[in-house]
């Protein structure tokens, strides 16, 4: 079948190239040096930084997204507001890369109207340096697609919560806190945790947004791969690029497997 041939050529073959190439040195001889090089300080730092960025934006994005999803779900199920926010989330969750970076530069960047306005009113939020082009900026920008993604994945779980459960809790004498602590909280927790993992993987794989936003330095692991692959920065190390790629795949795969396990747990009740 042409389909299998095509996929074999453009999906499986690249994977094989990565899998084999990671164990080859410049002379095509077997080596483990590429993996040893993963302990280089700048790659190690990028791994930690990317993990921290992904974790922060996943947790913050999931929390804020859950609040937004709750605000949506407590409204009318067929209301205009709900349809509007859900379609907007669908669009914004896909919104990333260069345009997103531009949007933030144009708004809160040092020439953006939000900054000019804030500065004119005595609030210079870049007084200690322009953090937009650094890791804090990346955190903020990532939230722009993390929150809508959370709304999309968490809404079905919230929809599964039945109002009867709250009535049952109340008829047994429970107050709002009891309800959230003993009924809704435990039911929603696996779904929430699963969503956090999904958001983590989403941020961890991101490249375009970071690269469009940050010119100096390569704080994100994906940028390190790009750097090792092209000779633009430093040395041309194709084997090393493949080793970082494998590190990335392993982390993303682990997170994804955990996510699907939690999905199954969620499906039991909601």
């Amino acid at each position, binding site marked *: 079948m042409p389909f299998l041939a095509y996929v074999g050529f453009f*999906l499986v073959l690249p994977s094989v190239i990565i899998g084999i190439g990671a164990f080859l040195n410049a002379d095509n001889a077997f080596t483990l040096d590429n993996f040893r090089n993963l302990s280089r300080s700048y790659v190690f730092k990028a791994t930690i930084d990317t993990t921290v960025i992904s974790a922060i934006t996943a947790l913050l994005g999931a929390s804020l997204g859950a609040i937004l999803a709750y605000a949506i779900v407590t409204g009318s199920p067929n209301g205009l507001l709900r349809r509007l926010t859900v379609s907007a989330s669908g669009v914004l969750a896909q919104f990333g890369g260069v345009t997103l970076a531009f949007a933030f530069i144009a708004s809160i960047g040092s020439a953006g109207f939000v900054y000019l306005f804030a500065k004119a009113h005595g609030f210079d939020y870049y007084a200690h340096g322009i953090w937009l082009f650094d890791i804090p900026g990346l955190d903020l920008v990532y939230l722009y697609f993390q929150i809508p993604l959370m709304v999309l994945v968490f809404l079905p779980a919230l929809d599964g919560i039945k109002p009867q459960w709250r009535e049952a809790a109340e008829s047994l004498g429970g107050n709002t806190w009891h309800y959230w602590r003993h009924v809704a909280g435990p039911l929603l927790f696996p779904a929430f945790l699963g969503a956090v993992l999904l958001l983590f993987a989403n941020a961890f794989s991101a490249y375009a947004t970071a690269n469009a936003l940050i010119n100096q330095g390569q704080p994100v692991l994906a940028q390190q791969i790009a750097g090792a692959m092209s000779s633009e920065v430093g040395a041309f190390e194709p084997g090393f690029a493949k080793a970082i790629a494998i590190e990335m795949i392993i982390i993303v795969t682990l997170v994804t497997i955990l996510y699907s396990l939690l999905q199954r747990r969620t499906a039991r009740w909601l």
Partner: protein
Amino acid sequence: MAVAARSIHQTRRIKLQVFRYVVFALAAIFFLVPLGAMIEFSTRANNGSRTLEYWQSIPKYPDLTDAIFASLQLALITSIAMLVLLVPTMVWVRLKLPRLSRIVEFICLLPLTIPAIVLVVGLFPMYLWLNTNLSDSILTLAFAYVVLVLPYCYRAIDAGLGAIDVKTLSEAARSLGANWFDVIWRVIVPNISNAILNATLLSVALVLGEYTIANNLLYNNLQVELVHLGRDNAGVSVAVAVASLLFAFVLLVAIAFIGGRPRRVRPEAVTTVGIGPTAGSPR
């Protein structure tokens, strides 16, 4: 007693409404300000007045217009190649090889778990070979883009095929003397036209927004050129970004509109494989 209970419910409802509108207002600010800012930025003159100068000077950058044209061509080629590859295969698997359906689904959703930057690492040596032995045209990027759009299009088409009775339709057509090409082209395709349109619009939106693969394979597509230009003339760059965003937005609204029509959809196709909806989108 009853009165007290009612007033508790009433205050709770008012509190909830206040909470909801505060949340919606904050969300609207966070999500709309950056979008509005781009329009503001692309129409701001140096002295602070409004100008359309940046928008008007878009055609004066040949690199930019070339990149726009290349990205549009790529979107077209990718969509057609994706449809030619995917639709017959999925119909065939449904009819003749149902045992393979899980494998095909797995393969199609695989690109979601592979970050685009990782795929590039594997594609890099292949494109080196391709460039020297076949062609170094930017249009060769379409090979990689078909893989990129595969999961999204698979889901769209799978939903479409799930909503019709492929088996009965094709058996009816076959018994009336149609060959397999006719079955697919004249019976199946018209019946899943919504799904096909959906898949096409999705792949166009994805290809126009693609940056990672093009940038690292050293091709100048629209997004790559936007970043280059952004370092020289931010105003023009942001103007084009707004334009491309509006275009993608129109496409996505079209999808939402098509998707909003009632139809039967098998939900399990999306949920059984535990891969997130957008883990591999082009950012």
